[in-house]
Every structure is written in structure tokens, then in C-alpha cells.
């Protein structure tokens, strides 16, 4: 009887604290999501007002959309390289900025600043830098590779997007890594010193294993944001040159709202969702294995 009363009380507490956010979550995320899944089985068109059941036709249409496949592969490449370079740079920066150098506070806020600028504005700023500033420098130095804009060649435009992404997120991830560095127990490091571990050895055997939680979160952030990159893509390249840099999100958007194939676009969005979910869950599970208790 007592335990029953207690569990009832627990449920009450749960609803009091979780209820409001749960309702908000349901209304603005779960319901639209399920409705979105439902729409993929219809020939939804808000202009004509149709919403008839068509079965799996939309998912079959994805396979005949060759463009979606190529852009998806390109998105994978983009996500891979931006994840690697973002984290590498962020880790190096964090390492340097926790080794007690002068002006480290100033430098920390300096590297963090790009993250405070929105993706659209950032895209336009870098577009100007790539198209005008760098080409101008190329002409005044008479250095051939810089004379043409990075944004006008399909492969180099993707490179430009990776550069800007790294620039944008490295500072943000650096903060997380700094927290990781600071969070390592002094005793552990001292013990390593006494045992004679130095420099690189200490970094690889003590520091990095103790920072696995930071790696989990940083990889998760870069991978999931990379897949869903849209604002930077829109402002920096908008698919140029000739549609070669339309990442998955932009392709889906154009499919739905410009080619007016709403349901096919929605089906592609669901596919993207599943892929992102699979990749990030796998990543978190794999990296969790390396977590150590100090």
C-alpha cells in the first residue's frame, strides 16, 4: 500500500516537472514528425490541395533521383572532412590554450567569436573573401592558383565550404575540449609525471583517454550539424557552380519547394533523418566504449 502511494507520488512529481516540456516536445516535434512520415505515403500538394494515399511510390522515386544519390555521397564527404578537421583544429587549439600561455583568455574568446556569427552572414562574408579578396591577392602577387575564385570549380567549392565550416565550429568545439582538459584530475597527471610519462606519451595515454566524453559530444555535434548544413550552403554557394554543391538538405528543399514534389522531398528528408540517426547513434556507441574511469 505504501509503495503504491509512493509510486503514485513519483508519477505526480514526474508529471509536474516533465509534463510541460513533454507536451511542448510532443506538439512541436513528435506530432509534426509523425505527420511528416504520414505525408510520405501520399501525393501531398498544398497548391492543388491533393493528399491521396500512394503507398511507397515516393520512396521508389528516391531511387530514380540520381542527383539525390550523388549529392548524398558529396554530403558524406563533406561531413567526414569537416568532422575530422574541425576536431583536429579544435583539439590543437584547446591544447595550446590550456598550456598557460600569455593572452590565453583573449585568444579563447577570439577563436570562439566566429561561432557567434550566424551561418547566413558568415556565408556572405566568406563569399566576398573567396570571390573578391583572394582573387585580388592572386592578381597582385601574380600567383596563378589564387586568381580564380574557389567557388567556381565543383571540387574546390566543396573545399571552400569545409574551410568555412571548420572556421565556424573549431572555436566552439575548442571550448568543449578546454573544459575536458581542465576537468582532468591533477592527481592523475602528477602520477603520470612521477611515473615518467612525458610529452606525447602523456597526451596519448593519459589526457586523450580521460577526455573521451568531450570527443563524444564534439563528434556528435559536427556529424549531426554537417548532415543538416543548410544556411552556410545557401549563403556561400547556393549550389554553385552548376548545382554541384547542393548538399542533402538543400537538395531536399529544392525538390519539395522548387520542383514542387513535396512528398518525394519529404520522403528524402525521412531517409536523411534515418541516416543521421544511424550514424550518430553508432558514433556515440563506438566512442562510449573508450570511456575510462579515472
Amino acid at each position, binding site marked *: 500500500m505504501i509503495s503504491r502511494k509512493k509510486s*503514485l507520488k513519483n508519477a505526480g512529481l514526474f508529471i509536474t516537472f516533465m509534463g510541460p516540456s513533454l507536451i511542448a516536445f510532443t506538439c512541436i516535434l513528435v506530432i509534426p514528425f509523425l505527420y511528416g512520415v504520414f505525408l510520405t505515403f501520399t501525393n501531398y500538394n498544398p497548391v492543388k490541395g491533393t493528399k491521396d494515399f500512394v503507398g511507397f511510390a515516393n520512396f521508389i522515386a528516391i531511387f530514380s533521383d540520381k542527383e539525390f544519390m550523388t549529392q548524398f555521397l558529396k554530403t558524406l564527404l563533406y561531413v567526414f572532412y569537416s568532422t575530422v578537421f574541425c576536431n583536429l583544429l579544435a583539439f590543437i587549439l584547446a591544447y595550446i590554450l590550456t598550456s598557460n600561455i600569455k593572452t590565453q583568455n583573449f585568444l579563447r574568446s577570439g577563436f570562439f567569436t566566429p561561432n557567434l556569427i550566424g551561418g547566413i552572414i558568415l556565408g556572405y562574408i566568406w563569399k566576398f573573401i573567396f570571390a573578391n579578396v583572394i582573387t585580388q591577392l592572386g592578381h597582385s602577387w601574380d600567383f596563378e592558383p589564387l586568381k580564380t575564385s574557389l567557388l567556381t570549380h565543383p571540387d574546390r567549392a566543396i573545399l571552400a565550404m569545409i574551410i568555412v565550416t571548420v572556421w565556424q565550429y573549431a572555436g566552439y568545439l575548442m571550448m568543449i575540449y578546454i573544459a575536458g582538459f581542465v576537468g582532468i584530475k591533477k592527481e592523475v597527471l602528477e602520477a603520470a609525471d612521477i611515473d615518467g610519462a612525458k610529452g606525447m606519451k602523456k597526451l596519448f595515454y593519459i589526457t586523450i583517454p580521460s577526455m573521451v566524453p568531450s570527443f563524444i559530444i564534439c563528434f556528435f555535434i559536427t556529424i549531426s550539424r554537417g548532415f543538416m548544413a543548410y544556411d552556410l550552403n545557401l549563403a556561400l554557394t547556393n549550389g554553385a557552380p*552548376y548545382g554541384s554543391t547542393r548538399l542533402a538538405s538543400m537538395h531536399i528543399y529544392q525538390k519539395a519547394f522548387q520542383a514542387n514534389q513535396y512528398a518525394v522531398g519529404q520522403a528524402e528528408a525521412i531517409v536523411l533523418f534515418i541516416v543521421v540517426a544511424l550514424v550518430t547513434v553508432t558514433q556515440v556507441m563506438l566512442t562510449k566504449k573508450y570511456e575510462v574511469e579515472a
Partner: protein
Amino acid sequence: MKRVFMSMVIVLVIVSLMFTACGKTPETAAPGTSSSPSGSPSTDSGSKDKTVKLTYFNTSAEVNEMFEKMFARYNELFPNVVIELIPTGIGEGQQEKLQSLFASGNGPTFMNVDPANVIEYQDRLVEFTKDNAPWLFEYANESAIEGGTFGGKVLGAPWSVQGYGLLYNKRIVDQVYNGQFDPTTINTRDALQAFFEKIEAAGIPATMLHGANWSLGGHYLTLTYAVQGPATTDGTGFIDSIKAGTQKIEDSPIFQGYMDTLDLLVKYNYNKADPLVADFNHDILAFAQGKCATFFMGDWAWTSMVGLENFDTEYGFIPVPWSNNPEDYGNTEVVMVLPKFQCIDKSQNTEEQYKAALDALGWMLTDPEGQQFFLDAGFYMPYKNVRTDIKYNSMTTSISEYASRGKTINLGCFSYITGDAWTETGNLMLKYVAGAINRQELADGINNYWRSVK
């Protein structure tokens, strides 16, 4: 226990509130079925003391303010009609906004939209007839009315005319030709080539292409459809036969001719070092300062130039010739197009609303006071009763000269190039200009695109 109970009650109340809020989606009338949804108590359009509220969806983002002033003035004249502007921004998702308005049952009364939208929304629109809109048939130019006719019905009221072709900077060209240049002499590709060579010999880059898919796909490639014949159906018929697979675009001499001319433009392109930069402000600035002699663009370029300092003000158009026979259609003409149409919705607006909208539209487009707003903003209106003492900018003047000589290309088929057509075919054109594909691959790509469209 009491607290728990209270909290559960609160949560339940919140949930029920939210669901009633969610459940109240407005009923959307199925397009084409009913003309006046029940819901408005009064259908008597004659009552004077009742105010009618209309909404106006505008995609000509650069003149939002002009419409606001116009509606304020209309409200002074007719106090029982209030028109509310739904503005959109340049580069903002205009189509998406319109789609969401209709999907949520708040379809605007008026729409100022692209011809492609008129086709998309045609089942929802009011047909203009001599009974409900006599002003349109009395004052508008016949060709403009024809432009607003879709599937045999006049669904869009035209209100402005734009044109494109090869713009030339008069100061630069006069320098080279010592003031002896006659634009009508450029009526064959050879003449164009000679003209370019002469300008290049004077040390000035002869032309400029804007490396964006809307310019090369939407404007340049569309010429190859439009020039198939003077009637709109000539162009759309050509596209239909490509769709059906009975025609390959590369078999058309007009396509081949325009591509030969494009090769010429690419050869003398001011941006040839990096043809796909497509920085509109950069290109406009270069052209306005006379860094190159000609520019494949339209008279809307003027709006972007007005803000510049020390720019040239005298420009004219020359045609883009596609063959060496001066008699061929397209070699002596420039394109004239009706870029936007005014439409009225009947699917989600009451009869009272759309009748009031018809009256308001008549005032805007044919009353001298209404027209003055458009003229002040620099629009060239295709109506017979427009004041004739207006001085337009040099680009619009040049277009109107071609129009008065009847030397215009009918770009009616442009209305049917909907959805992602010009983005996709434009991207192929950019590949061609950048040298990534050859002409046969370009043609294959265009054929494949049209065949994939249902």
C-alpha cells in the same frame, strides 16, 4: 496527495487547451469547387457601411512601398475597402510563403506573382471576363492580354513589361565608332562578330555574360524555344515535342545557331578567366563603368545601377542574332516579357472580397491616379491609356522603341518553364560555358531534363 492531484489537473487543462488549439485548422475549400465559402454572414456587396478587408500578396519585393502608398490612397478614396499588403523580401522564400498561406486557409485576395505561379494556382483564380473586368479588355494591349491567358482563360492581369537582349554602353560604343553606330546593323552573327572584333581591337572587352543559371538557363536558353515561332504555342509545342521524345533539341537549327552565338559571347566574355563567379553587383558595376561594351541582361539592370556613383546612363539594346540571315525571326528582335501578373483568388476568399478586389485592380491599372504610382516607380505599363509624356530610363526607352516597331520576341512560353526547369537546364548551360561538357552533352542533358518532367 492533494498537490499531485492539482498538478495532474493543471497538466490535463494544458493538454486539452493545446489540442483544441491544434484542432482548429481552418477549412480549406477544395480548389475549383466552391466560389464562396460559407462563413461570411453578408454576401451583399452593395452595402456601403461595411468594410471589406482584402489581402495583397506581393512578390515584386523592390516595390513593397509603392503598393503600400497606393493602397493607402485607395482607402482614402473608398473608405470601405481596406487592402493589407503581405510583403515579401528579395531572396526570401516567396513561393513557400504563398504555399503556406494557401495550405493554412489564409489565401490572399490578390496575388502579384510570376506567370509560372498563375499556372500552378489556376484552379483557384478568378477568370477575368468582359463582364467582371471591362477595364482590362478596354485598355490593355491585346498582346498583353494574350500573355495573361492560360488554357483559354484570362487569369492574370498584366501590369509591367520588361525586356532583355544584348545591352550596350552607348558611350563606349560611340567612342569606337566615332558616334556612327547603328544598332539595327547587328542583324546577323557575322555582323555581331565583326562588331565584337572592332571593339576588342580598341582594347575594350566586347561583352559580358552573367554566369548564373537564371541568366543562361532562364533567359538565354529560353530564346531557343521562343524563337521557334512568333506564337506562344510555337515555343510550348517545341518543348512538348521534346518531352514526348519526338524532337531532340540538337536537331533544331535555332538551338545550334544560338549555341554558336553563345560560343562567340564566351570567347569575348569579360569574365572569361572565371566565367562562373556570377557576382551580380560586380558585373553591374563593371558594365556601368564602361569596362566592357555589351552585357547580356535586361532593363531591370537599371534598378541596380541607380545606386551607383559615376555611372554611364545611356544604354541601348541590340538583338542576339542566331543565324546569318537577317530575315530570320529573332535576329532583329529583342525579348519582351510580362514578368508578373495580378491575379485574384476565389478559392479562399468570399465573393464580396473578390468583387471588391476586381474594382480595386481596375483602379490600380487603368485609373490615371493608380497608374501614376507605377509610372513613378519606373514601370512601363502595357495599357493604351497611359500618359505619353513620361520619360523612362534609357534601357526601358530602347525596349519600347523595339516594341513600337513590332520588333519583339514573344516569350510566352517562358510562363510554362516552371518549377526547377531553369535551375536545372541553367546548370547545364553553366557547365557548357565553363567547358565541363560539350554541346552534345548539353543537348542530351536538356532532352533528359524535359523527358523527366511529367
